[in-house]
């Protein structure tokens, strides 16, 4: 029985990297969005430029479930190399769309699915002479064909093409022609599928954007002026987006000069070195990197912690350890970031759940770094960073002031304010600092990674060292009140079980919570958004008999952090872990939690 669905199905494109499919696939997703139907789109790509398999998965979800669902309803199988597993992945009753130019034996198909063949190559070869044209237009042709098969309004795609190639009318015409070629083929030879897209009004004013771009834009609004980076997937597009936004938004209108400085450094160590140097000198500075970069930066992060220098690191996490799965997603840098550095160190982490929060926290991180005079991490991952997510529009209050933290300037120094670079003054563990060059005779000090007294003079005296380390702890406690607070999502009825989750798992968790509730399993849910952990998090754990901690790594790093920082009994926290490199799915969460809950004494609700 072929699957039937309206505005609720999953399409997966199996392509070859470098074939130009990405922009066509993205247009497919965006066209559905323009019809008012939410989509969740994800790239699944290799560490490769040309030739290896790449996938693009589009979940059409009028209900607004932006996580991965799991399973595929329609496979657009354009890559012979992955044919077998692509076909195998299709849900029973699902559909297979393929290039029927080359005849395939029956053994290559399945009986329980509907196969839709379009001779894309043959059509291209007939229409185009240049190999590159044949390649690129093939993608547009299948978009046209899919539009016809799924009832996507062709005019919406035409509009998108017009926007994409604005000013290049010849290209628009050529693309529209290819689009029509696909649509017309379906109209003549095939009938529409039972998977349908129908115009709705469920997108609202939401925007469709990558987390990396959003974080970069946050850095622009957060006043970052210095960016130093070293290319590493999946963070590269963050630095590149920052460059692009700065070129648009940060040029002095009178002189045409740049109000920013971006250095592509020789490595991650130099990147963070530049950031620390700029932060020391009073500029807001950041780097974007991933796990391997954080490993390299660790010595500098320790310096930033101990010498108390503001820095912001966007860690777009990927699959580790070592080079690991460089193009796959994980949330596996949590421990490495939280405790980066030798000796006793810990650092504030911000944990955005979608590009909207990437923007907000991307800006907020700079205020926190200046306020706390330390490295602040913004922990993205590949899933948020490199995929376009449907997210609430960016907002900015024009009255918002940048918090430059505790800085003594010329006037204060001249007025004789006592200055000790590492002197506790306000009881919050945060000392005052001065920028180099502030005053001819006052406020100068020597910054070092060695132990020193409150007046920044070298000291290896035990009591002096301990006093300083204790102050740093007080400062970290101050950070607890400054990082974003957790978000509670209570179950519809009272329960003694809960889930804790964060970051890119969020939409999948939310969807799963709905399913679980539907199945009578009620869970309170708390989304962690910052480290050090707010008191509410530990109160939440205390208020529940069992808490599932859902995260995308093998070692339950968030759970470990919670146990460690909150001195929690490990038996109270049950790990729900997904770490195969693909984004966590609602199905996985639902199934795992259901199983775990059933292994225990059944809850009364579950027994009903």
């Amino acid at each position, binding site marked *: 029985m072929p699957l039937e669905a309206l505005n609720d199905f999953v399409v997966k494109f199996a392509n070859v990297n470098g074939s130009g499919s990405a922009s066509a696939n993205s247009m497919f997703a965006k066209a559905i*969005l323009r019809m008012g139907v939410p989509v969740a789109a994800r790239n699944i790509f290799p560490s490769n430029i040309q030739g290896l398999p790449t996938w693009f998965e589009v979940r059409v979800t009028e209900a607004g479930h932006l996580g991965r669902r799991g399973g595929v309803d329609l496979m657009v199988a354009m890559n012979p190399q992955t044919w077998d597993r692509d076909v195998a992945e299709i849900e029973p009753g699902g559909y297979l769309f393929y290039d029927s130019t080359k005849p395939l034996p029956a053994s290559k198909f399945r009986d329980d699915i509907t196969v839709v063949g379009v001779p894309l190559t043959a059509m291209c070869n007939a229409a185009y002479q240049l190999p590159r044209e044949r390649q690129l237009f093939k993608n547009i042709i299948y978009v046209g064909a899919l539009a016809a098969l799924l009832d996507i309004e062709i005019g919406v795609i035409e509009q998108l093409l017009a926007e994409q190639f604005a000013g290049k009318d010849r290209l628009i015409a050529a693309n529209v022609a290819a689009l029509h070629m696909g649509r017309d083929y379906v109209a003549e030879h095939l009938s529409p599928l039972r998977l349908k897209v129908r115009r709705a009004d469920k997108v609202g*004013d*939401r*925007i469709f*954007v990558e987390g990396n771009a959003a974080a970069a*834009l946050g850095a*622009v*609004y957060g*006043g970052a*002026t*210095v960016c130093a980076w070293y290319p590493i997937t999946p963070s590269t597009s963050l630095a590149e987006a920052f460059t692009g936004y700065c070129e648009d938004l*940060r040029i*002095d209108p009178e*002189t045409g*000069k*740049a*109000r*920013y*400085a971006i*250095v592509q450094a*020789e*490595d991650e*160590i*130099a*990147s963070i*070195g*530049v*950031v*620390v*140097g*700029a*932060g*020391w*000198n*009073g*500029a807001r*500075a950041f780097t974007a990197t991933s796990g391997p970069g954080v490993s390299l930066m660790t*010595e*500098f992060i320790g*310096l930033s912690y101990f010498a108390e220098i503001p820095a912001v690191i966007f860690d777009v996490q990927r699959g580790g350890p070592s080079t690991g799965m460089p193009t796959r997603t994980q949330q596996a840098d949590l421990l490495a970031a939280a405790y980066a550095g030798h000796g006793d160190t810990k650092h504030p982490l911000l944990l955005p759940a979608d590009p909207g929060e990437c923007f907000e926290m991307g800006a907020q991180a700079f205020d926190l770094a200046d306020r706390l005079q330390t490295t602040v991490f913004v922990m993205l991952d590949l899933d948020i960073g490199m995929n376009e997510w449907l997210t609430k*529009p*960016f*907002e*900015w*209050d*024009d009255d918002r*002031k*940048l918090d430059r933290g505790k800085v003594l300037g010329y006037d204060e120094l001249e007025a004789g304010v006592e200055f000790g670079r590492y002197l506790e003054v306000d009881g919050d563990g945060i000392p005052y600092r*001065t*920028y*180099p*060059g502030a005053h001819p*005779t006052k406020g*100068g*000090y*020597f*910054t*070092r*990674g060695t132990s020193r007294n409150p007046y920044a003079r*070298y000291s290896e005296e035990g009591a002096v060292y301990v006093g300083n380390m204790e102050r740093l702890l007080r400062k970290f406690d101050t950070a607890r009140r400054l990082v974003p607070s957790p978000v509670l999502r209570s179950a519809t009825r009272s329960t003694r079980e809960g889930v804790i989750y964060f970051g890119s798992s969020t939409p999948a968790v939310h969807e799963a919570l709905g399913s679980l509730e539907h199945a009578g399993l009620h869970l309170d849910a708390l989304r962690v958004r910052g480290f050090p952990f707010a008191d509410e998090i530990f109160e939440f754990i205390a208020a529940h008999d069992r808490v599932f901690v859902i995260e995308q790594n093998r070692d339950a790093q968030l759970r470990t952090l919670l146990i460690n920082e909150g001195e929690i009994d490990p038996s109270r926290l049950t790990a729900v872990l997904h770490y195969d490199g693909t984004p966590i799915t609602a199905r996985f969460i639902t199934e795992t939690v259901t199983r775990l809950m059933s292994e225990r004494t059944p809850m009364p609700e579950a027994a009903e």
Partner: protein
Amino acid sequence: MTYITKPQLHHPQLKPNALGYTRRDYEGAVSTLCAGCGHDSISSAIIQACYELDLPPHRVAKLSGIGCSSKTPDYFLGNSHGFNTVHGRMPSVLTGANLANRDLIYLGVSGDGDSASIGLGQFAHSIRRGVNMLYIVENNGVYGLTKGQFSATSDKGSKSKKGVVNHDAGIDLVSLALQMGATFVARSFSGDKNQLVPLIKAALSHKGAAFIDCISPCVQFNNHAGSTKSYDYVREHNEAVNRMDLVPARSAITIDYAPGETVPVAQHDGSVLHLHKLAEHYDPSDRVGALAYLQARQALGEIVTGLLFLDPGARDLHENLGTVDVPLNTLSERELGPGAAALAKINASLR
């Protein structure tokens, strides 16, 4: 090493400079290096140079890595901000500091371990980017703080204090700096302040990446027979290609050398370098020639010192990046934040 504080009492004839500061006002804490360390002489030369240039001490930012040499910024310009960073990474921190505030004068102090071994990459890259700075390597050919291991600048065939012969080729930082595009390159000797002080002054006045390789004997571990970085060896093999004086922009020019031997070179800041030739045919504006000359003389066992290369019209990193004239760390919210209206447009483009 000395533990008493250097008395503030000073010579009654000590003259203030144009800013009213005496040379003593440019001093820092008392050195904790070994007695007789060449590095202390370099600190003293820096003090003298800054004093003579009438630099406001607080407008100089001192940065260093780790090692004996990197401890020295504590020992001069006590009112300046200093930053003792991590091993081999001073160049990146200096680059970042420079990007944040282009108005300060950046003085990077490093050693041969810091710059030729662990930090060779950062050394090279900061120079090829044209960071406006003076980068001094206090080069003693040895790891002092860990007690006498060879460093990467130890010459092949030189002997350690324990009698071990170095079999690895030495890295010549001057040649490397030339290759990396440094626009001011000099070599000097801690034991020759008459040469060193004018070089530091000129380098501090230079806009762009200025590099001075300053041979600085380690009295404890590298001042024995068989060392090529000892006081005696350097004095015997020192071949200065020129002597120079720096005439600040506002002074009348009074230096008078025989014509033909002296070349005046205008610096970016309006000061004039008067180069007094010692080696015939040596042309410090010829990068390729300088490299060849260095190699040839080095093969003869000579240590070429003096101003080796100068491009007075160099561009620096800020020019290459096209940054605004004011320090980035002074930009206001209004100048940094594009505002809600711009954001609304961006939102619209993302639907």
